[in-house]
């Protein structure tokens, strides 16, 4: 499967990936609406980490032996057999946070929708290049 490759040497820490990810996963998909009108505001599913001159954007690695999938007791966290994407079925998620405990990268969040559910990178639904990659101004993220 295609994965997002992180090139830390090119990351400038601008956090455009976070903004674009948030907008992509908002209700409207529009930046102004997503920030001004939607409440609670959608969360970015990517996290820019920064320390001195070093920075990189990190999101779910869609692990082969994904502990979040194994430890999900509702079966909400699952792998798309075709694309290999690990995603959370929000209908089925009960918010037990077993996935959060299990994720060694800490890239799963609690998100308030109609109820609180687990939220993570879904590779933008597998429909081509994820927005964080597409909108990165310096090719610090590649999809290949």
């Amino acid at each position, binding site marked *: 499967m295609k994965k997002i490759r*992180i090139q830390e040497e090119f990351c400038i820490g601008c956090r455009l990936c976070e903004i674009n990810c948030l907008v992509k996963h908002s209700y409207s998909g529009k930046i102004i609406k997503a920030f001004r009108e939607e409440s609670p505001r959608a969360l970015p599913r990517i996290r820019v980490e920064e320390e001195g001159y070093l920075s990189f954007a990190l999101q779910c690695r869609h692990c082969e032996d994904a502990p979040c999938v194994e430890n999900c*007791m509702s079966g909400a966290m699952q792998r798309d057999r075709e694309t290999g994407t690990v995603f959370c079925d929000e209908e089925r998620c009960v918010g037990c946070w077993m996935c959060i*405990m*299990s994720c*060694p990268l800490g890239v799963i969040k609690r998100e308030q929708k109609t109820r609180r559910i687990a939220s993570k990178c879904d590779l933008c639904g597998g429909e081509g290049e994820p927005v964080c990659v597409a909108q990165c101004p310096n090719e610090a993220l590649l999809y290949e």
Partner: protein
Amino acid sequence: MSEIIQTNYLLIGYSVSSWFAAQAIREEDDSGRILAITEDDKAYSRPLLSYVLGNRSKDIAYFGEVVSHNPIEVWWGSSVINLDGVERWAELSDGRKVEFERALIATGAIPVFPPIRGASGEGIFTFTHIDDLERMSAYIHKENIENILVLGGGFIGLKTCEALIELGLNIQLVELAPRLLINMTDEKSSRHLEKALIKEGVDIILEDTVEHFEREGQKLRGCVLKSGRSISCRMAVVAIGVRPNVAWLKGSGVQVDRGILVNRFQETSCPGVFAAGDVTETMNMVTGERSVTAIWPEAVIQGKIAGKNMAGKRDVYPGSLPLNAVEVGETALISAGLVNPPGDDDCEILVCESEGSYQKLVLKENRIVGLVFVKNIEKAGIYIHLLRQRISIDAFRDKLLQPDFGIISLPSNFRKHMVEGAGIEV
């Protein structure tokens, strides 16, 4: 002479451990017969019970890929009543006999029910089984229950409270210990949970327990606590713990203490007979003590290890790690490992507190051995990973519990190894 069935692999009980064992066996052996025997009539998720009761989940059935993509032969509505771990056969409730080469005992745990006067009769439930869910739901509706007593402030007790809050019931939660989730919390983290429960209208009574229940005919009317306090309720849930379901193993040759004793390969005292999940006693990876760690993630790991070894490969169990999460209202809590080190232990405690949030790490010999996080839980998995991998925190000690702590704080070769995959490095 009753029918004799032969199988390569016999799984006794068909829940988490057996699901993952079956998958691990299949990965190594694509043709051997795998037969599972279970009293249940479908694969369901026990930790979902409280979420179904609270209407947060519609369905109790489990649809995870480990079950849906690994169909094996399951005999539903049946149970093993006798096992000979030496001669390797099992007798079923319907009289049939199964001869096996390898067996997995994964019969889980059953609730502890203390002998309390007045406990027999209507209105008192334990909550670990699909039948309990149906009976409790029906009883709440039929009897129009408004007030309910939950006896036990452990994990099942709190999950029950989560559900009952969603149903809008008035809850009285009685716990013998001076705090909730005694093994998962310290005093401060428990106070956060208590505050959240009180906000949801739960009445918490600590350091007390039920002395006897009071009845009006068959119906529950209330109870009197050890302290003398009277409580009026027509329904109660007893959630003071579970114990391994091992009584049926008498005479099997399988060595049992509190739970089934297993070696590092999840194998019991009878060669060829393995055990996994809530029914076993395993070595705690932090304390080195033997205990029953009845949680889903352990059932997964133990099931996988058992399955692999059953299929003739060698895989070693790293030891158990108690961990769990609860959430009441806005307050989420995650706990892992050793939260309350004994006083004589050479442990160091790091704490970070702010408005409504509490994070505590327990360190020993430069390694993380336990934690409890309240509210700010999303990076707990990173710390738990460091604990499991026994990573020395020497190089990044000053970053621990800082708001921007992350993968970037870890030594670069370790984080490159974590962010795995060809060409994927940070």
